[in-house]
């Protein structure tokens, strides 16, 4: 629903970078790999947290 605060595997705080990643790589046209490198999200475990995330609040909100 909301981006996880921390990486499930290593505990690094990844939520911090979500909005920038979303704006630049998901909605923008930058290369996700380059954006993650720039944000300092180095490990595979942390990178998959952002790459595989989808915000669902907008989808769930009408049913609350």
């Amino acid at each position, binding site marked *: 629903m909301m981006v996880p605060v921390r990486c499930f595997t*290593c505990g690094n*705080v990844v939520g911090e970078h979500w909005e920038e990643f979303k704006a630049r790589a998901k909605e923008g046209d930058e290369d996700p790999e380059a954006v993650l490198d720039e944000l300092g999200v180095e490990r595979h475990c942390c990178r998959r947290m952002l790459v595989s995330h989808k915000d669902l*609040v907008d989808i769930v909100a009408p049913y609350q």
Partner: protein
Amino acid sequence: MVPDYDVTFIERGDREARFLVRDITPAFANGIRRAMIADVPTLSIDEVRVIENSSVMFDEQIAHRLGLVPLTTPDDYEIGETTTLALDVEGPGTAYSGDMVSQDAQVEPADKNVPIIDLKDPEGSETPQRLEVEADAVYDRGREHAKHQGGVAVGYRHLQTVEVVGDTDEFGEDEPHILRGVIEDDGELVPTEEFDNDLTNRFPGKELVVEDVPNAFVFHVETDGSFTVEELVTQAVDTLHDRASDLKDAVQL
């Protein structure tokens, strides 16, 4: 009595560092690692009083997310001591970790940009969604709960040496020789990233023997922002020191 350890920094930042320590035993290196993970206390939100939550998430989910936000560590707290933070955000908009207001000026979210919950202003509803909570952060150790771990991905590797023992077979296959960590080459410390973790880039066409340097460990330490790497490591070593002296006192006649 306490020997001096030879410490060399390879990379040094506030939240991430790599350093080499010589003349320590593997057991002591692991002791430091474990102390960094389990023994150095940090503040973390533990109890949340929900005054209003009309968001799409349950109170428990919000509390869980708040608990994971790293908080800066004050320097005069005892284990179990608490401080209070408040969060009051009304939609439409997002409640961020940085919106939390703390009672103690020394305590603030280390990362201010973590979205806690997206608040909407639904059509047909009289008031927008709102989140108002009061949270108690408690000062405790990583062994109590993982959210109190200040160190993230703390580990170490042996320092390694690479010795050239001859030339590779001219007609042999060109296979990469992948190595990660830090190597010592003619007294110089070289992180393997410098040659793309492939020894054949640095020593092309050579037959190599890689060996661990006994009792030399390269630590890689990251923190979640609760404190700097330096504070984490020194506090970890202090807890080991305290426990050793407690043991010494306990077994004394």
